[in-house]
């Protein structure tokens, strides 16, 4: 966090020294975004906490737990691809799922699928600005990415074990 705030200070000083004093514009942008995000974030986190207590952990664990392996990674990829909304929905969902016992590679697959498929984004931005043909090409090229990221995450996790041998 200290790193993050030093970055803010450094960039802020730099922006203030450039002609046009763009730091004010940046402050306005940030404040506007904060006002927009805050009320929803508070509600989303509170909902995520309570939902996490209500979801049966055994069910989540057997479906996408650390022992669910490749099947769990594929299931998590499918769920992630159909999760609508921005990070304000997806990240609290990941918190809920991991507290309920989801495995790390499965969560990586979920987040990757949500990031690359995000169908609301395809509908509103990509299809209108780039055309359906481009969107279809990109989606098809991305089909394998969520499972790939999940499996790679599993490999990365096992590096310390391999090195310890």
């Amino acid at each position: 966090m200290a790193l993050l705030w030093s970055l803010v200070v450094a960039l802020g000083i730099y922006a203030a020294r450039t002609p046009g004093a763009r730091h004010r514009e940046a402050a306005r942008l940030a404040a506007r975004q904060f006002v927009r995000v805050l009320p929803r974030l508070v509600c989303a986190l509170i909902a995520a906490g309570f939902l996490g207590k209500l979801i049966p952990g055994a069910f989540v664990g057997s479906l996408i737990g650390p022992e669910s392996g490749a099947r769990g990674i594929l299931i998590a990829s499918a769920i992630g691809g159909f999760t609508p909304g921005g990070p304000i929905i997806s990240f609290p969902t990941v918190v809920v799922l991991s507290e309920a016992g989801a495995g790390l590679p499965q969560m990586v697959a979920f987040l990757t699928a949500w990031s690359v498929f995000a169908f609301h984004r395809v509908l509103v931005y990509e299809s209108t600005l780039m055309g359906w043909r481009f969107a279809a090409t990109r989606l098809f090229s991305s089909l394998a990415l969520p499972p790939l990221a999940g499996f790679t995450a599993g490999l990365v996790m096992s590096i310390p074990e391999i090195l310890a041998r």
Partner: protein
Amino acid sequence: MPGVADEDGRPSPPSGRDDGPRSPRAFDRSFWIFFLLAIVSAAACWAVKGEAVFRQTLFGDLRLLAEILPRIVAALCVAALVQVLIPRKAVAEALGDEAGLRGVALAAGAGALTPGGPMTSFPLVSALHNAGSGRGALIAYLTSWSTLGFQRILSWEIPLMGIEFAAIRFAASLPLPFVAAAISALLPKPARDPAS
């Protein structure tokens, strides 16, 4: 002036006019959906698990919120500063001429550094396309922006999931923009594809 970072990804029409004062829309319909969800899940938790678990969960949530709020404020500031400091047009011009693997790698780097939501990235993709970037580079850019984007990692992933999770996911996602670009190169291109 670059567009307002709509990191929420909420459907809002991509108008060409992305500057000018807009109302913050803090309490629009999507807020009330979240609000309702919080109330219903809280009530259900109280009913099913009892008051003790309800209290404990609520305090846990509030603690988490207090922990991540300063980080989110800082991340929003970084995103806004990067947004005003790096003009979209200059990036598009710098990337437009690069072709092949170099172009894909540069596009992936630019994608990871692009802050904000689809309101920032898609207009840039459009500009890159107009500046002559190839289809593979555009796909690499979007894949990188969505899976490696530094702003999302700083403002959401590290505060909520911890640095270890973020590091493992980042390492596992590094090859993704290149894989997507490589696969897209194998796909058929139409005779006059506007984005090829």
